[in-house]
C-alpha cells in the first residue's frame, strides 16, 4: 500500500469549527435555559393581558358569579354578592395572582367555587394525555403515509394522499370531531360518544381507553395533514439527493438506506415546522375536548370563558401556552439531536 500513502500531500487543510458532542449538549442546555428564561416573562404578560381584558370587558363579576340565578336575584342579594367579591383594582388582583401563582395558589374560581389550583390539577393530566397520544398517532400515520407515497410516487396512494390530506387540512378540527362522533358513535355505535368513562364506572385503563379512542383520533386527524404533507415532500426530496444514491451505490440495503439516510433527513424540516405548529395542536385539543366532553383543561378553559371566570381563564391560558412552549422546546431539542447542522444557539 506504500504507493498510496506517499502520494498524499501533507494533511492539515483548514477545518470548519469542530464541536465535540459535549459542547453541543451544553449548547442544547443553554437553549432550554434561554427558552425558559424567555417563557416566564411571556407567561406573566399573558396573564396581565387576561386580567386587563377582564377589566375592559363590560361584564360585571356579580352577574357571572350568580350565573343562572342572576335573573331572580333581587337588589339586596346582588349588592351582597358585589360586596363579597370585593372591588379591588384589576392590577392589584393581577399582582396578587402572579405573586401567588408560583406558590401554587392560582386564585379562586367563581364558576367552580373552588381553588383554581385544584381544578387545574384535576384537568391538566387528561389534556396532556390526549395531546401526546393524538400527536404520536399523527406522527406514526404521517411517517407511514409519507414513506409509502414517496417510495411509489406514481402509485394510487401518492395521488390520493396529496389531494385527500390537503382537503382534510381544510376541515376545521371541531368539524372533524363532530363527523367522527356522527359516524363512529351515532351511526355505527362502536364507540362511546364521549366522557372520561362509562357513567359510574371507575377510572380504569380499559374504560378510559375506550373513551379515548375518538378524541385521540380527532386530534390525530386534525394534525395528520401538515405532518404527512411535510414529511412526504421532505422524503421525496431526500430520496432524490446524491447522498441517498451514494449510499445505495455503496451496497447499503434499501431498508437501512431508508432508516439511516432518508428518514432523519426528512425529519429535519418537519421538526423545524413542528415547533411552530404545536400551538395549533393545543387549540385543536381544546375543541375536541369540548365536543367529546373530555374533562381536560381545554374544556375547562371554554367553560371559564363562557362563565367569564377570569381567574380560571388566566390559569388555563397560561398553562396551555406553557404546554405549547414546552412542546416547541422538545421539537427543537429533537431537531438539534437529529440534525448536526442546526446550531442550538441560533434557535
Amino acid at each position, binding site marked *: 500500500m506504500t*504507493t498510496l500513502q506517499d502520494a498524499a*500531500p501533507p494533511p*492539515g487543510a483548514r477545518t470548519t469549527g469542530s464541536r465535540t458532542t459535549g459542547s453541543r449538549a451544553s449548547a442544547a442546555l443553554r437553549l432550554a435555559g434561554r427558552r425558559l428564561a424567555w417563557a416566564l416573562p411571556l407567561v406573566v404578560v399573558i396573564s396581565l393581558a387576561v386580567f386587563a381584558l377582564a377589566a375592559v370587558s363590560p361584564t360585571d363579576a356579580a352577574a357571572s358569579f350568580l350565573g343562572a340565578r342572576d335573573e331572580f336575584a333581587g337588589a339586596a342579594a346582588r349588592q351582597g354578592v358585589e360586596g363579597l367579591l370585593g372591588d379591588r383594582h384589576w392590577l392589584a388582583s393581577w399582582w396578587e395572582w402572579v405573586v401567588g401563582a408560583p406558590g401554587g395558589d392560582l386564585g379562586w374560581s367563581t364558576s367552580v367555587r373552588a381553588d383554581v389550583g385544584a381544578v387545574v390539577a384535576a384537568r391538566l393530566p387528561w389534556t396532556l394525555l390526549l395531546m401526546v397520544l393524538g400527536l404520536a398517532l399523527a406522527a406514526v400515520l404521517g411517517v407511514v403515509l409519507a414513506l409509502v407515497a414517496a417510495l411509489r410516487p406514481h402509485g394510487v396512494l401518492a395521488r390520493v394522499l396529496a389531494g385527500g390530506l390537503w382537503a382534510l387540512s381544510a376541515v376545521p378540527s371541531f368539524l372533524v370531531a363532530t363527523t367522527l362522533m356522527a359516524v363512529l358513535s351515532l351511526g355505527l355505535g362502536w364507540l362511546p360518544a364521549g366522557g372520561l368513562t362509562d357513567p359510574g364506572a371507575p377510572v380504569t385503563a380499559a374504560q378510559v381507553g375506550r373513551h379515548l379512542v375518538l378524541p385521540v383520533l380527532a386530534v390525530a386527524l386534525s394534525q395528520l395533514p401538515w405532518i404527512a404533507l411535510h414529511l412526504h415532500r421532505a422524503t421525496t426530496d431526500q430520496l432524490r439527493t446524491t*447522498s441517498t444514491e*451514494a449510499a445505495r*451505490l*455503496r451496497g447499503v440495503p*434499501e431498508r437501512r438506506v431508508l432508516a*439511516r439516510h432518508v428518514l432523519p433527513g426528512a425529519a429535519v424540516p418537519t421538526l423545524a415546522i413542528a415547533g411552530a405548529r404545536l400551538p395549533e395542536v393545543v387549540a385543536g385539543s381544546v375543541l375536541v375536548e369540548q365536543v367529546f366532553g373530555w374533562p381536560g383543561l381545554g374544556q375547562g378553559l371554554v367553560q371559564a370563558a363562557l362563565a367569564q371566570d377570569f381567574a380560571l381563564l388566566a390559569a388555563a391560558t397560561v398553562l396551555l401556552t406553557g404546554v405549547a412552549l414546552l412542546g416547541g422546546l422538545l421539537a427543537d431539542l429533537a431537531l438539534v439531536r437529529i440534525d*448536526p447542522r442546526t446550531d442550538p444557539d441560533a434557535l
Partner: protein
Amino acid sequence: MADTTTTATTTAGTAPRTGRGTGSGSGPGTDPHAHAAATVRVRGLTIAHGDAVVLDGVDLDLVPGTVHAVLGTSGAGKSTVVAALTGTLPRGTRVEGSAVLETTDGTRVDLLGAPRRARRRGLAGRVVGTAPQGAGGAFTPTMTVGAHLREVQRVAGRGRPRLGAAHPHLGAASRRQLVELAHAAGAEPGWLERYPHQLSGGQLSRLGLVAAMVHHPPVLLADEPTAGLDAEATRTVGALLAAYAAAGHTVLVITHDVALARQTAHLVTRVARGRVVAQGAPADVLVDDAPVARPARSVAADAPALVARAVAAVRGDRPVLAPTDLAVRRGEVVGLTGPSGVGKSTLAALLARLDPPDGGQVVLAGAPGPERAGFDLPPAERRRVAWVSQHPHLAVDPRLPLRRTVELPARLADPGADVTALVTGLAGRLGLDPALLDRRPHEVSGGELQRACVVRALALAPEFLVLDEVTSMLDAATAADILDVVADEAAAGAGVLLVSHDVASLRAVCDRVLKLHPGAGGAVLRPLPDADPTPLRKDPA
C-alpha cells in the same frame, strides 16, 4: 460480442507515461497486494430518454492499473455513462449496447442488464465502487463520515466478497482499516468523526472517494470528483486517483477539468453531444485544449486609472484585508487570484466602490467631491464602474423577464437612447440568442444568465469592469466567450479587474496577475510570478 482482442487501447502492461514506477500495474497476482482485477468493455452504448439521444454508440475500455478519463463539456452526456454502468438511469430511458465486466477469476457480468437487486447485493460497493457527482453529495448530513464508512464495512462484512479477493486491507481490523485508508487519501483520521458540513469541499471530495474504496473494489467510477474545487484540492484528488489505479485497480474518471485529465489519465475519451470525438493517449487528445494565448496589449503608463490606496477591510473584529494598493488603468486587464475565502470578493467590491473601505480610499480620476461608496455615490459616477458577481441567478430579479432586467438600468440612465438595439447588439457579441431575453431567469441556463448580466453591465458603457469569479460556475466554452469579450473591451479602452481561482485562464487573458495571500493582519496582495513554482505533479512516484 466478447471480442477479447483489445482495440487501440493498450493492456495494463504498457504504461502510457514513462516513469510510471515499477511494481505497479504489472501483471495481476505478482503484486504484494494483488487481488482480482477487472476489465470493463463497453461496446455500442446508446442511451435515449424520450426522443432525445443522450449517448450514441460509445465504446470504452477500462483496463486495470489505468485511469480512463472521459472529458466533455457539461450536458454532453458524460454523467450518463456512470448512470448506465451503475444501473441508476432514470425511469423510461432506452439502453442499447453492452458493458461486460470481466474479472481475472472468471466472473463475467453485463453491467447494463444486471437486475437491480442482484446488482445491489453483489456488485455495488464490492466490485464497482462509485463516487457520485458533487463534492459533499456522497455523505448524508445527519451522519458522521466515519459512520458512513463503518456502515459499509458492516454491510459488506456479512458475506465474503464474491470475488474471493484476498486483500491485505480486508484482513486488518475494520477500525484500523479505515485509518489506513484515510491516510492513503491524505485525510486525517480525525476528520472521520466530523459531520459533512464541518469539512471543506476538498476534504469531502477525497473522503467521497475513500467511501467508494472501502472494499477496494476492482472498478472505481468517479463522476466529476473535482467540481467546484480550487487548484490545490484538484491536484490532491488527482494524485489519489492515479495512486489507486497504480495499485492495480481500474479507474474511470468523468470530468470537464482538462488539468485533472492531463494529470491522471492514461487514456482519454472526449465526448461531445453524446458521441466520442477523440480517444487515445492524453498527449494527442488534449493537444488543442491548451489555453489560447491572446496578443499582449501595450498600455500607456499614464492612462486614467481606478486606484485603491491602502484600502483595508474589517468584518466584525477580524481584519479581512490588510492595507492594499491596487490600480487598474484603462485598457489594462488585471487578474486577481488566491485561495477561496481569502478576501478576493471584498477587495473587488471595494474597488467597485460598492462598500466604503475601513481604511484608505478608492479614487477614480475625474470623480467630483470626497470619496464615497454605494448608494451615496451619484448614479452617473457609479455607472462608470460595472460589477458582475459570481452567482448570476442571485443577481437578477426572479420575477421579471430578462429583457426588462437587462434594459432597465440603461433606460433609467438615458431614457432617450434606443436601448433595445444596443442590447441586441451586445447579446450577439456575447453569443446570447436575443429570443432568450423574453424568458424568465429560472427558464434559462446559468451560462446564458451570466451572459445576460455581462450585457446588462456593458449596456451602460462603463469605463471600468470588476468581474468577481464570473466564470467559475460556467463550462469552458461559455467562459472562453466571456473572456474574449473582456479582452475586446480592454482593447477598446476599458480597465478590467478579473477575479478568478483558475490561474491558467487568468494568465491567458490578463496583462498581469496578482495573488492575495492569507495573513495574520488580513490578506496581503503580491504579484504572481510568471512560472508557478508548484508545477502540476502527475507522476506520483
